């Protein structure tokens, strides 16, 4: 087990190197990426361009820049550890900003995950148990709607109904949990639900499918033959088996949210990582884009590691190898 984890952690490092290298390649080396142009004003002189390139560290060959990037990442830079560099756009160290935004996205992801797991599991299970009833069709209709409704549309609709029309929730924006816990929840409840709805729909379908498979398993018949209550058959036996594969799905979805909740963050105006990387991409703020990519990749890699460990714990048939 210990050796397994060490091996997996080393693998995470390898994956991170590959991801950052590819990201680096895309951001720095691909043609038409001339970040210095944003800094030289309306009538740049060659001297000014050269100066800016030097300031931005663009005067080194790409491979040296990448080497410096990796070195700072592991050893830290003058702004602390991990060394994530200096934003072209804000002319400020990225590290603190990224950490503050990480927690925003983390809160968004955790809150949404709780809601979507709850909704997805409950709806999927009930659908499976009441297969082909009106309730099942209604739930699967909801799932189809959830999967096919774009988040931005849902978000705007949500704001229109609950903010502009009913005045149940405050407008968009972010309140720090430590500053105002109630405000935090009233501001986050909308993005949580809107983000969760899409996933809840997907998870409801997955859980329903898994449940239907599991319910036809012999061991469910055995459980019933033992005279267990139906609740126990469903929860302890069927759900336990049906949800184990969902753990894998969940781990990856949760990880990807760290760079992928862009639309939700944008619609609800949350200062999270998704907004950060989007703005960075538009402004060619390459160090920021690279830093967020790195963090997202790291979270995904860690989540997949956790999933594998958890899976082996949840399913005794799986062994560490």
């Amino acid at each position: 087990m210990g050796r397994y984890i060490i091996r997996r952690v080393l693998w995470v490092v390898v994956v991170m190197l590959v991801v950052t290298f590819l990201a680096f390649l895309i951001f720095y080396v691909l043609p038409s990426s001339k970040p210095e142009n944003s800094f030289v004003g309306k009538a740049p002189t060659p001297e000014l361009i050269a100066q800016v390139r030097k300031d931005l560290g663009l005067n080194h060959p790409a491979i040296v820049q990448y080497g410096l990037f990796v070195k700072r990442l592991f050893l830290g830079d003058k702004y602390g550890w991990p060394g994530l560099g200096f934003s072209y756009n804000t002319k400020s160290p990225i590290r603190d900003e990224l950490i503050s935004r990480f927690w925003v996205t983390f809160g968004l992801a955790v809150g949404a995950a709780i809601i979507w797991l709850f909704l997805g599991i409950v709806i999927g299970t009930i659908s499976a148990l009441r297969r082909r009833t009106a309730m099942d069709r209604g739930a699967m209709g909801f799932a189809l709607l959830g999967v096919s409704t774009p988040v931005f549309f849902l978000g705007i609709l949500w704001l229109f109904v609950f903010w502009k029309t009913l005045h149940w929730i405050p407008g968009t924006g972010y309140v720090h949990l430590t500053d105002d816990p109630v405000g935090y929840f009233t501001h986050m409840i909308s993005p949580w639900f809107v983000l969760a709805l899409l996933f809840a729909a997907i998870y409801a379908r997955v859980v329903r499918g898994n449940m239907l498979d599991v319910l036809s398993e012999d061991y469910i018949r055995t459980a019933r033959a033992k005279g267990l209550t139906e609740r126990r058959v469903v929860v302890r036996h069927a759900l336990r088996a049906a949800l184990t594969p969902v753990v894998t799905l969940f781990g990856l979805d949760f990880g990807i949210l760290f760079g992928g909740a862009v639309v939700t963050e944008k619609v609800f105006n949350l200062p999270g990582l998704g907004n950060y990387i989007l703005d960075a991409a538009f402004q060619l703020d390459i160090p920021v884009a690279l830093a967020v990519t790195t963090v997202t990749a790291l979270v995904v890699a860690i989540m997949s590691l956790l999933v594998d460990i958890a899976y082996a714990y949840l399913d005794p048939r799986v062994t560490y190898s």
Partner: protein
Amino acid sequence: MRGKGLIAAIAVAGVTVALAACGGGGSGGSANTNGNTTSGTATKGGTYRMATQDFGFTGAFDPSAEYLGWAFTLYGNLLIRTLLSYNHTAGAAGNVLVPDLATSVPTPTNNGLTYTFKLKQGVKFGPPVNRAITSKDIEFAMERIATPSVAAQYGFYYQPVIKGMAAFLAGKAKTISGIQTPDDQTIVFNLTRPTGDFLNLMAMPASGPIPPEVGKCFTQAGAYGRDVIASGPYMIQGSDKVNIASCSAIKPMSGYNPTQRLAFVRNPNYDPATDSTKVRQALPDGFVITIDTNAKDIFDKIGAGALEGSPDDPPADIIAQYASNSSKKQFLKTNSADRTDFIYLNTTTPPFDDIHVRKAANFVMDKAALKLAWGGNIEGPVANHIVPDVMYKGGQFDPGDYNPYPSTNSAGDVNAAKNEMKQSKYDANKDGICDSSVCKSIFFMNRSVQAYPKMTPIIQSSLAKIGITLNPRELPTSPAYTQIQTPSKHIPIGANAGWGKDYPDPSTFLRTLFLGSNILSSGNTNYSLIGLTSAKAKQIGALFPATGVPNVDADIDKCTAQTGDARNSCWIALDKKLMETVVPWIPYQFRNNVDLIGPAVTAYDFDQSTGETGYAHVAVDQSKQSQ
């Protein structure tokens, strides 16, 4: 997209956001086309709340480096006082220089080479510096402009003009020989040549005082933006909590997070007696600008009274919604943004290397249809020359209805166009229709965003009337600019460009855009390549027609050296000369700035000098603000 233009409408790859809508213009006199008054009484107090999709600062809010028009607005209205300033009001009156830190606007001596400023007594820096502002603080700001690592992006305005600045820039001098500070209240500038717009440079934020004891701690470009020391009526929130005992003790001010929020509160050291209420009224107790990544949300919040305004342009549907509703119309504020939208014609590539073709194109263009594509007059009036009228002294282009290529309702005059085309070498049979192959399928660059694509068919059908057919290519803002700013691409015609002023002087159009010696191999903004020489053409990979290209460098240099009314007349004459005998563009629109304000705003004004809301003169009614 957004309304905040770079103060200079720079147009280089990568600044997609900032470039989308720089400035505008207003011909025919009054810029204040929609009334900048509001109902209610302007009272002190309250917080003026704004949101933007992103600050878009080009220099991280360090005044030495910052080049964004909206940042200029914040500095001049709220945070930084300069030797000279503007009244931060709408129309031509807002483009007039007035004394700010200086006791008066000086007249040059020594044949226009020496300017002496006297500073007012009793003007202090805000916390944590808390001391009187001296001439040394201005001198330090000037040195900072000439320090490459923190250089202002518009440093090129100062560097060739002030004596010794080039040497300081090159590291050959420890001080700028052309600047003297005989005492704390006096600063003297010696110039390399008579420069009529020098005083405008002294109203730009980079020339505002910076306390050396703080400024010297920031050697990296933009870093000072987190700790800008106030000299105006407001300071960045948290300024008073900053410890300046040593450089390492200085932490960023809490009121500014570059990706989330910027908040101004009253500067306790500001003495209104040293200022004029015409320049700054400073009515609200504070200003807060937050980042809201949801553009629609911003304008919904303004409508609901949860915000007072935004530096971003309202989306077209919001404008239409307000403009068509008589009770809501009062919340839309329309003013000339001193920006010209134009179709440029490359004088080095056929068929536009022939002036008759360029003239014919001007005659035939259906500007009325182009205006419709933009949504009508709310976006600004039709342009028939280069520099927006408001920028000329007194706000009048003379004559106001000047139009060298007149047509009924600006819909284009096909007969006049054909008469010009007949004189062209590309119309062999002289029927007024270009019959040369060079007129067929000409590459035409346009933007793929906003109203730009709607113009393509109009331009195509207009030019088709004189036998010119286009091969249009539409790209996003930034790549489209990259194409036309690279002369070696030989793009003959494009409608994707626009230009806004840096400061209210025609030179920021006519000198910056048409000086042959300024032509660059990339990032070039002299799209028509006026003043190109054959040597330079070879060097940058441009074409050079046998008949040569027109050159106005001498006219530009002549006007640059002039001052006062003579200068104004000189620029007007050059504007006309360009339109009549050079014909680099088909100008079609002087663009407006459209602001949407919230119901709690009881006073609104427009800062003509920067083309944004005049925050120095706004007021809010707290009782009408909602959350």
